[in-house]
């Protein structure tokens, strides 16, 4: 493909690319800089690009997040818990919807989608009452459970599209050899949709990690997550931008790292159909 590209066109494309990256990545860098810059330069006009970051700020941002550490740990527990709980529910459902003839398949698929319609913010108080009645309020599990209402529907749809792409001939061959459905699903199909599992889990992790609404009422002082932490620096008598930015950077890094580390799956996963079977 590259050989078809004329130099001028290439120049235009790279210019567009640079502009695009500036627009999408520039603000993130700007926020990271806020976390480590001397507070006096935060709102300087014209903006100060060069400064000597305080060693203290770098330390607290990247190495020892201090008060944010506990909330980061809580966020991690909730997000990993949400991912782990999601898979055993959504993968079999996706498999079934992809492989079997269900009379109400269309209805079920649309029903999952419809779950995302209701405004989560309206459900905070009922969820709190519900979780209290079953003795779960303030626990990680309460947040992990409630997050499933956002994560499972998304995961079923995504996983189904992945499983759809696995050639049925493979399963058919195994079936003829006498393998039962669960052997086929676990030994043949799932290994083939590993990229799908990874991508689905990545998105589930990020949705859970970033959710601010549910922890607002479902967490306790022991289980509060990072978004609640950032809100705290937005107090009634003052806003501490460097604190907010520090907490925000702590909150931004893990999802970004995950997406960078598993980058090859993001597209390979989503384009599974393009990979010749």
């Amino acid at each position, binding site marked *: 493909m590259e050989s078809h590209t004329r130099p001028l066109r290439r120049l235009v494309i790279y210019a567009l690319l640079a502009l695009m990256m500036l627009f999408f990545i520039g603000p993130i860098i700007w926020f990271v800089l806020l976390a480590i810059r001397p507070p*006096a330069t935060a709102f300087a006009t014209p903006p100060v690009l060069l400064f000597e970051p305080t060693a203290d700020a770098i330390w607290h941002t990247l190495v020892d997040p201090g008060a944010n550490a506990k909330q980061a740990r809580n966020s991690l527990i909730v997000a990993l818990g949400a991912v782990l709980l999601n898979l055993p529910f959504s993968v079999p459902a996706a498999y079934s919807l992809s492989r079997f003839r269900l009379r109400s398949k269309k209805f079920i698929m649309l029903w999952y989608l419809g779950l995302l319609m209701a405004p989560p913010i309206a459900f905070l108080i009922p969820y709190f009452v519900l979780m209290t009645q079953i003795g779960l309020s303030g626990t990680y599990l309460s947040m992990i459970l409630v997050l499933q209402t956002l994560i499972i529907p998304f995961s079923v749809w995504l996983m189904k599209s992945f499983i759809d792409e696995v050639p049925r001939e493979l399963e058919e061959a195994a079936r003829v050899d006498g393998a039962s459905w669960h052997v086929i699903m676990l030994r043949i199909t799932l290994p083939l949709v590993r990229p799908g599992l990874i991508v689905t889990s990545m998105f589930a992790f990020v949705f859970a990690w970033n959710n601010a609404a549910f922890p*607002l*009422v479902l967490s306790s*002082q022991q289980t509060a997550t990072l978004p*609640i932490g950032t809100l705290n620096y937005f107090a009634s*008598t003052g*806003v501490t931008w460097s604190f907010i930015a520090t907490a925000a950077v702590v909150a931004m890094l893990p999802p970004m790292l995950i997406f960078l580390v598993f980058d090859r799956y993001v597209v390979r996963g989503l384009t599974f159909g393009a990979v010749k079977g």
Partner: protein
Amino acid sequence: MKFLKNGLSRRQILKTTAGTTAGAAAYSLGLGGRAPAYAQSGTSIRVLSVEDPFLFALRDTIGDFTEQTGIDVELESLSYDAMQARLVTSFVSNTSDADVVTVDQMWTGQYIDNGWIRPLDEFAAGDADLDITDFMPEVLYSLNTWRGHLATLPVAAYAQGVMYRRSVADTLGLDIPDADGSWTWDAYTDTIAAMNGQNVNGTDMFGTVICGSQPTPIVHMFTQAAASYGARWFESFPASPEWDFTPTVTSPEMLAAVEQYARLYELSPPEAINYLWFDAGTRFSTGDIGMFYWWTPYFYLIKNNGYMTGEPSVVADDYGIAPLPVAGSTPQVISLGGWSFGIPSTTEKADAAWEFLKWSTSAATQKAMGLVDTYNYQFSDFARRSLYDDSDLLSIYPYLPTQAGMLAQGNGKIARPPAPVYTTLEGIMGLELNKVLIGQQSADEALSTMNDLFLNTLRGNFLIPYSLPSFDDTPEATQALISSLA
């Protein structure tokens, strides 16, 4: 837990234990040494606090409490919205996991009436350590009492006052009065107008700065002007034997206050329309505002360049404090606010919680909080009279006598009446005022819409006509309560 099942409350058990060890405790306290053996020694309590300046000072002194009482404290802090969400939902389901909670004065009545927090009368009565007469009665009236009960204790008490730039006033030859009742809102506005647009020492000045953001910030600031003008929200509440919530927001006094506030906005930076509480103070500390009025914590917050940075701002040595203006001969009313601690009904550690309340609001602790200098001395919101002529504190916070005068004129229940649906009314008022500032409607239109919406809300919530028992909630009633508890 087992005690509860046997029909014996933890508190009763503790009471008996406390009785047997009371002598020993009193003895060790009397000697002024460490008090090692409290009844609650070894227990641990959870304190849920709002994130506000007092918290930083409290956090730095909390070790003293554990040392004195043997009670461990887990201090959690949340932003106001998150805290309120957590508290109300946990109260509805009876599952508050905190032993001490921050109670907003606007919600005190609901917390007590719903039985979410327990009245403190029985704890306070006869507890000489509390020294209840040292609290300013205006503060207890505004923040801590409801229907003749002591509901909470004040850990930080705010009034409102004027802050101005000395150098600006001097350069422009403007006289800022320092005696109470010595200037009117018109004089105040004229002074601001004289500062507005002037270039002073190379800085283009704005006359003043207001908070424009709805719902809460604009209402907090506006209601001070309204109270000064003599405006009232309702026909008769709370200082009346017969409560009547018929709104009176279309009064000429309220109109004058709205017009005054709109005038102040014209002399403010235009972006103040989106300013939250802290934005106004932060803006003043950047040096281009001549004069503004706001909650008293800003008397020390503006000394810093940014919240909790500990770095001095450009105005740190160049500002003065003045009392608020009055409207003609209308008696001054200052809006009082702040934060208070209460004891949720769900806690089994009420006695330990009471120890914490008493300790955190005591003169000794409040003074220690005022002397914390981690962030350049940031706490002078004392509810205790005795601290206002404390020489150590005066050398750090020289404005304390002026602040004491502001508190003495305070009546938080007039400025922002704690009606049962206050937050809804605040939302309405905030939005309508905000629309006046952006020129979407006139002050007249705003007030008549406000009146209609107030009526709808109050009727819809069965407050008009009011059928529940009223309570003649006057400063005198609070005074009587204090005497009975002392």
